[in-house]
């Protein structure tokens, strides 16, 4: 599948933003977050920036961005529509929570309750995002429960790392707790991604050139003449092939930058050189971003679509 930049930024950015929103409410209710105006402004600013930027960027690849509002209407059948509805609805409780936190310095009791609703809706939105991809039977690499698990875990993971950075920046006493939380989710994310790749790599073929043409009875099917000499829309969108060449290396890069290095950086900040913890936190965020973007790029670029069976693939 063609890995559109807008969609990569949308899924990673909004995922991290929703993860942050979820953690802010959960941690505040547990008493690990100060109801401080400046901190709140930064935390919600970054979270809403990522969510809003992600959603906005997802409209950039549309043929008609000005009609994007129409995408709210088909929530009965379409996961993309559900995602849009959930995303807009989530702005309600999370926005109220942000206002209460920043202007009333209140992040527990009633405000906390609203925050928790916002946290739940944030995770529902991430789930809807994952199902846009996870519901497509035509792309077996996505049509697995591990797609949903990965999107949810990565949202919580990236959100936690960002929040840890912020807590170090503001010198919060609870920074160490958030650091351990981040480490747990980085380890979990690492395991989930490996399980995802194993599941995808070992899955039996869903469809073959024989089933695509219905001619399997006659023998082995091979394309000998493509409909035309140039690429077409289908090949550009669904027949993306650059990634496969470097897939192995890119997977290692994604794992090391996205999970291992942030994990080690947090380790070093916690147990090694706490005086440099801001440096480590910044480092973890930067490598984490590169890693998760690589992971998402691979998620698209490595996924094969069954329509390519009509263009020379033999099994998918």
């Amino acid at each position: 599948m063609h890995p559109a930049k807008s969609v990569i930024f949308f899924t990673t950015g909004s995922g991290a933003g929703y993860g942050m929103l979820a953690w802010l409410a959960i941690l505040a209710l547990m008493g690990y977050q100060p109801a401080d105006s400046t901190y709140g402004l930064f935390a919600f600013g970054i979270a809403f920036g990522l969510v809003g930027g992600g959603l906005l960027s997802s409209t950039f690849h549309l043929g008609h961005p000005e009609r994007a509002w129409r995408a709210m209407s088909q929530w009965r059948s379409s996961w993309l529509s559900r995602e849009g509805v959930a995303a807009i609805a989530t702005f309600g409780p999370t926005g109220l929570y942000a206002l209460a936190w920043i202007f009333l310095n209140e992040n527990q009791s009633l405000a906390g309750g609203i925050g928790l609703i916002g946290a739940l809706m944030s995770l529902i939105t991430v789930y809807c995002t994952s199902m846009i991809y996870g519901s497509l039977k035509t792309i077996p690499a996505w049509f697995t429960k591990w797609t949903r698990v990965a999107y949810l875990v990565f949202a919580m993971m990236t959100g936690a790392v960002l929040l840890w950075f912020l807590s170090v920046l503001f010198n919060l006493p609870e920074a160490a707790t958030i650091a351990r939380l981040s480490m747990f989710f980085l380890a979990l994310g690492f395991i989930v991604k490996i399980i995802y790749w194993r599941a995808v790599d070992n899955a039996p073929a869903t469809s073959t050139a024989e089933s695509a043409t219905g001619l399997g009875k006659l023998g082995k099917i091979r394309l000998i003449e493509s409909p035309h000499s140039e690429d077409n829309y289908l090949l550009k969108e669904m027949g993306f092939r650059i990634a496969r060449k470097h897939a192995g290396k890119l997977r290692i890069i994604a794992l090391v930058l996205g999970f291992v290095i942030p994990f080690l950086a947090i380790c070093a900040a916690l147990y090694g050189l706490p005086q440099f913890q801001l440096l480590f936190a910044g480092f973890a965020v930067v490598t984490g971003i590169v890693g998760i973007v690589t992971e998402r790029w691979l998620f698209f670029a490595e996924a094969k679509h069954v329509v390519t069976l009509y263009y020379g693939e033999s099994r998918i």
Partner: protein
Amino acid sequence: MTSLPRKSSRRKLGLVIDLDICVACQACAVNCKEWNTSGHSAPLTDLNPYGKGQNGVWYNRIHSFEAVDEKTGDSQTINFPKSCLHCEDAPCVTVCPTGASYKREEDGIVLVNGDICIGCKLCSWACPYGAREYDETEGVMKKCTLCVDKIYNETLSPSSRVPACVSTCPVGARHFGDLGDPHSEVTRLVEARGGFALMPEQGTLPVNRYLPPRPKQHQKPKDQTPRMLEHKDDSSDGAGLLARWVDKVLSA
């Protein structure tokens, strides 16, 4: 509404394509383009049509496959036209977030309303058959309409009220009709010839059917090699007078 009609339509208009006789002449693809570029979802835009890297909207494409029998090594070529199969459980319809994509209750035709399509391309991801075509110029998705503007057109003679690909096929490899009617000509044709659906494992319940190539009628015995030319490069036996004289001169 992009939910599918609750009851599947009684009429299921679709195509039956005979892979036994298609010669890949491309007439169906060309006439499809000709009709539809001024039809329901007009135009069928082409980008850079006379330069390098031409790219354009086509509803119908013809692939050629080779089937190799792995036991005997025999192979045969099958020409394979492919367009929208107007699936009963059309995933391109249910993923549409705007309601632009819909399946008609009265005859099962799957269409796109270009006025409300946002061009998100998700329907093209959901379709296993590559039936969806994105028009970059207009920023909307387009697809085979089964010539909905031709098959019901009462200003045309009744025999012309079939999709453009069907009326133009010079070998009669394409048939159009109601596959929901057990007594229709197309249904009986599918039964008689063992017509099949493409990628049934995708669960899309396509309406269109393909007819398999018929078994070869004149199978050769396995040990008989094809007739070869007999070469007589080192002998002039049986050659004419002039040839024998030239042979003699040149051999000297």
